[in-house]
């Protein structure tokens, strides 16, 4: 019984992590939907978000959840600058979508190198009360930091969905992703929508970075790498362009990682993720929640 509850505990932790995977993946999914660009630097933006939390909390002593707002704005701006440098110049050229793979890889290398130079490779963490305070829900103990990270992730995903469904600019984002030519024909400034979407996607990654940093005491320049892989798996698993799919896919991938830890070991936990991932790709390539690609 003791073992059983320890396992439950572990799986819950990973499910919570999965919620944050969902938030990270949402940014990727939006960017893919609107400009068919793959953002290889996504995890590195998450890493910058972690450092944003570290520096604002340690230098100014502000609450990490205020740092989440700071990171959202800061990374949103960084995302827009990146878009102007790395995406917009190539995205409409022939082969442009493939070219974004290379340009964002370049951005990834730059961000990681800068972080190594500026902040050294040694892991950092900061003190906060949330990770040392625990609550018990339905017999499962979790830190307040993890509980908040999960709730904020889900709420953010729902908020983005409502933004896309109700706000005019949000609808324009969906319009561009459903039919870029139709969008230009009705007078939507498509390059501007691309810029805003890339900014939003990166801002979400930055916010996710702050949330992770509240309970994951391992802030380092190469921390984004794991997140890249996990969030790509979540995006493809959910099916491109489905918003609520990322919540479920995120949690499933999180729990799968947890199961991997139990069955194999911490170091090999992602093996199981890949197994599930490849199975889905083979059996249901449109993703669990996505619709099959079709011509309309």
């Amino acid at each position, binding site marked *: 019984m003791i073992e059983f509850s320890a396992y439950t505990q572990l799986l819950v932790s990973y499910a919570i992590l999965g919620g944050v995977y969902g938030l990270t993946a949402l940014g990727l999914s939006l960017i893919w939907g609107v400009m068919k660009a793959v953002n290889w630097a996504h995890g590195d933006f998450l890493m910058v978000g972690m450092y944003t939390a570290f520096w604002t909390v340690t230098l100014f002593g502000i609450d990490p959840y205020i740092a989440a707002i700071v990171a959202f704005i800061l990374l949103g701006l960084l995302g827009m600058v990146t878009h102007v440098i790395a995406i917009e110049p190539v995205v409409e050229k022939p082969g442009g979508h493939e070219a974004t793979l290379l340009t964002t890889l370049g951005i990834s290398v730059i961000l990681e190198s800068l972080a190594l130079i500026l902040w050294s490779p040694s892991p950092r963490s900061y003190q906060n009360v949330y990770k040392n305070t625990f609550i018990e829900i339905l017999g499962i103990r979790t830190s307040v930091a993890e509980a908040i990270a999960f709730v904020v992730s889900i709420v953010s995903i729902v908020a983005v969905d409502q933004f896309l469904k109700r706000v005019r600019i949000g609808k*324009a984002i969906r319009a561009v992703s459903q039919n870029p030519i139709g969008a230009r024909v009705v*007078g939507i400034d498509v390059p501007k929508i691309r810029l805003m979407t890339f900014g939003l996607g990166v801002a979400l990654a930055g916010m996710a970075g702050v949330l992770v940093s509240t309970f994951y005491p391992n802030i380092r320049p190469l921390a984004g790498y794991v997140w890249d892989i996990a969030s790509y798996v979540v995006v493809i698993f959910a099916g491109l362009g489905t918003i609520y799919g990322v919540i479920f896919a995120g949690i499933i991938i999180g729990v799968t990682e947890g199961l991997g830890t139990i069955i194999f070991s911490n170091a090999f936990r992602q093996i199981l993720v890949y197994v599930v991932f490849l199975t889905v790709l083979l059996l249901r390539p449109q993703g669990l929640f996505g619709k099959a690609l079709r011509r309309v």
Partner: protein
Amino acid sequence: MLLELQKINAGYGDLQVLWDVDLQVDRGEIVSLLGSNGAGKTTTLRVISGLLKPFSGKVFFNGEDITRLPSNKRVEMGLALVPEGRQLFPEMTVLDNLEMGAYTRRARDKFQDTLEWVFSLFPKLKERKNQLAGTMSGGEQQMLAIARGLMSRPEVLMMDEPSMGLAPKLVLEIFGTVRKLREEGVTILLVEQNAKAALDVSDRAYILETGRIVLKGPARELLGMDEVRKAYLGI
């Protein structure tokens, strides 16, 4: 002159499609651009709407040179396109598609009025306003595409083969709508393969052949010309 093309040369990469195309549309006219498949009709509309930059030549709208303006600015000025293949937003409702049609500042404030007007032209769309555009029939989608174009409150509405793939009854309905729109003061540039129907509603027409304007004149005169009847009307 409301819309004017001067010596437009355009194409895709090394492939030139249009050669020195001159075209004029006056306020209140219905003008048709006719020609067989691949003659350059769609390319002409793409140049006018800003989806394609010409190699050379100029496009004027209301006397202003708009050759270098992006497409969204042209819609803002009152130049709307109902594109080939409709290009609707399939996962959005009819109403959301229409709202996107009124995306420009020019159309935004008049959204409710325009919506009522468009619903009076196409009552079926009102019934279907909460349906996803992608789930409608071809004819309904064409209605929606025209309605979406009208939502931008255009001075000139360009239509690219609105009758394509539709049943004869629906084709009649579409051309009836074209006539009605002119009465409401919308200037229309119509691209069609259905030359007879297009000439019947038009004031003037241009005929494109392999990227060059080979004939132009009042629609009635063209209808009476032997070469037109043989080549395009199948008489």
